[in-house]
């Protein structure tokens, strides 16, 4: 593994990009997870779910507090605006609570919750597609024309990465968000989306290709 890192180091050109790519590979290699911690947590979460079903609804707030960041950020990356993200994230938690009896003990609560959130986002995007207002059409076409001001704005990477993500087809966006923002592996994504990991790999690869093109077109670099 170290050999690989050295080789990667050696062929990449000098400058910040070198560090970027290098750190990416290093992380890839040393991504270890503390399995024991996770098992403990899973048992704890089953206990919380059992208590919720026994009528102690208050304890559900522990799960909300624990996963609100994950659900809210997935929703934001999928939908592109904070207001809908807030609504959909809240609805996801409420739907999960109502469906707790369907939660299977051999699965992870976070994965199950994630799939509920993704479905909520899909429904929301679909309903939005049916009712696109004239304003929104105008907004989209206006944003296509890049002015020097836009280019300056593009340097705010947080903003531009979202506009790039918004342009990806829904399925590619899902795959990229789960893989690279939430850090899931393909097996977890397969469980979550109910799509084979082979298909998900293709979607992720295509999504990455599109992102690469979009970022290149806008001249966005890592700064």
């Amino acid at each position, binding site marked *: 593994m170290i050999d690989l890192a050295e080789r990667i180091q050696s062929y990449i*050109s000098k400058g910040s990009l070198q560090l970027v*790519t290098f750190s990416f590979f290093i992380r890839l290699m040393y991504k270890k997870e503390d399995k024991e911690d996770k098992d403990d*947590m899973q048992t704890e979460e089953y206990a919380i779910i059992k208590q919720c079903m026994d009528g102690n609804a208050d*304890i559900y707030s522990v799960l909300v*507090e*624990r996963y609100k960041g994950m659900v809210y950020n997935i929703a934001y990356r999928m939908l592109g605006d904070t207001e809908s993200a807030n609504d959909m994230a*809240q609805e996801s938690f409420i739907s999960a609570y109502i469906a707790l009896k369907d939660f299977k003990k051999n699965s992870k609560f976070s994965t199950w919750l994630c799939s509920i959130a993704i479905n909520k986002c899909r429904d929301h995007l679909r309903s939005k597609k049916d009712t696109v207002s004239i304003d929104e059409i105008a907004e989209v076409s206006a944003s296509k024309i890049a002015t020097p001001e836009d280019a300056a704005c593009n340097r705010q990477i947080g903003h531009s990465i979202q506009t790039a993500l918004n342009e990806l087809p829904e399925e590619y966006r899902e795959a990229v968000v789960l893989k690279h923002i939430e850090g899931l592996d393909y097996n977890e994504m397969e469980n979550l989306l109910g799509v084979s990991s082979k298909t998900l790999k293709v979607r992720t690869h295509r999504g990455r290709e599109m992102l690469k093109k979009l970022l290149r077109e806008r001249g966005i670099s890592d700064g």
Partner: protein
Amino acid sequence: MDKNMELIHKLLDGELSEEEKKEILDRIDSDPVLKMELDALSMAVHIVEKSERLPVPPSFTSNVMGKLPARKSSYREKVWNFFFKDRVLRWNMVTAAAAVCLAIIISAGVFKFQKKHDLISYANMPVESTSIVKFNLYVPDAKEVAIAGDFNKWKIDGNSMKKQDNGIWTIEIPLKPGVYNYMFVVDGKVWLSDPNAESYQDDGFGYKNSILKVAKL
């Protein structure tokens, strides 16, 4: 997508065998266009991965908790609960006054009885020792977590917890034997019950206190 690009994506996903790795790295070494593609892809991935996570609106948890539907219990559950569920006594002034009177009468009686028989010798009672109790809570997104309870007069800034690298907040508190009510306070405003608590009790404000029993050593 051509074969080289496919291999580059697999390389990014860490899914290549040693042989394939060597093969693609050799090709990248000799082909500047391929190298540019890898650089651009790694950068796109890096930008996505380091994109900032948005902070969740502060009222999020309370909004969700406020919208949860009440669970309907079945007939069987109702019967079960009637016999076995922990009960909470609801007070009003009349029952409270009656209880105080009863307590005075009983304690007066006990006092008299003790005086008469003088059986209990307090001198032989052992000094109460303290135990170190460790509290844990996993809330990776929290900025600060504190514990408030009977032992610190419910001060929300009395005992701040420390965040471990794995997102679990912990604190160790020395406690004398006894029964303690407590809750966690996340970011100074969200009150959470302890999922690991032995039992729970309504606190009268719509939450459930966690209960800890510290036994005598």
